[in-house]
């Protein structure tokens, strides 16, 4: 799987380098640079062809749109991954807290109900049996 990313990365690096060199030629153009510019233009088109060939290998790759927001703002997209992990952990802890609280409440409720309604709770435990710890 990493190979197809490496392949795409290599093509993109060459493409970007080609574009950068075209920008240098254009920034201070001379008549003798025309041939080189034409060559770079065709290199750019072949670069786009190479990138398009890589597309078929990456059809199963999905990128979340939220990551694009970070890129558009000029921010590191790894911050999106970091925030996802932090949010997941925070939510995990929150849910665990709820589960622990409900478990304690359940055991407390059963205990108190056993004091108030001993016969009914005995029947309840006979029906449900010993509930497994959650």
């Amino acid at each position: 799987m990493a190979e197809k990313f490496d392949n795409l990365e290599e093509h993109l690096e060459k493409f970007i380098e080609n574009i950068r060199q075209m920008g240098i030629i254009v920034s201070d153009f001379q008549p003798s640079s025309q041939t080189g510019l034409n060559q770079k233009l065709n290199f750019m088109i072949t670069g786009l062809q190479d990138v398009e060939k890589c597309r078929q290998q990456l059809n199963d790759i999905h990128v979340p749109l939220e990551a694009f927001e970070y890129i558009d703002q000029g921010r590191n997209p790894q911050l999106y991954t970091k925030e996802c992990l932090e949010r997941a952990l925070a939510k995990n802890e929150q849910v665990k807290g709820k589960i622990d609280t409900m478990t304690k409440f359940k055991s407390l409720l059963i205990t108190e109900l056993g004091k108030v309604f001993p016969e009914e709770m005995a029947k309840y435990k006979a029906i449900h049996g010993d509930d497994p710890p959650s």
Partner: protein
Amino acid sequence: MTEIFSTLFGQSEAQGPQGPGTLGFAPGKPPPLPQTQAPAPPQIPAQPGDEGPAARKPGVMNEPFYLLRELPAGNDLTGNTNLITHYNLEHAYNKFCGKKVKEKLSNFLPELPGMIDCPGVQDGSSLRSLIEKPPVCGNSFSPLTGALLTGFRLHTGPLPEQYRLMHIQPPKKKSKHKHRHHRPQDPIPPAETPSDTDPKKKKKKRDDDPERKKKKKDKKKKKNRHSPDHPGITGSQPNSNSLR
């Protein structure tokens, strides 16, 4: 509206005593089952993995608990488990959350030329606009022929000032030494003249704000152009000619 309530819950009033605060809800005790009727259908559906029919007999066993339901099947994976450990994401978590991740996009893509830290909305290079309005293009890329290449004949001379900043990279803070020959093709503006090696200008280049550096470079360009002592190297930089 009250008539509807009375018709719906009128039977419950006749059947049994109402507890306080019922307000039309069903009475606390269930109505006694008539002997002629068959026993009520099991309220607890049988589920796989059940302990056995003995513990789940409907009707008689559940009589005081007519609303008793089967406990839901316990899921192995709940919020009680550390999901990051479960999905083997500890390494990723330590990598992204343990260390400080740099804020700028240029830290993620250091080799990418141009001003990539600026928002894409400013210069129309946002990915969002590309998704919302994809460019209209053909199905394949074909190389440019001679006739098409005639459209790319350019005028000689440097670019206008408004277009020059597009390819200038932000100054890298790591390289304190002047390794500008690392990329000899970079079109460094006339600030590369020997006059820039003065110590005063070296001190000025220690500013942390890249925008100030650009403004200073622009001012230097203007000064160098208008100064009579300037040798007039604006169009013939040795670095820009290295590609030929």
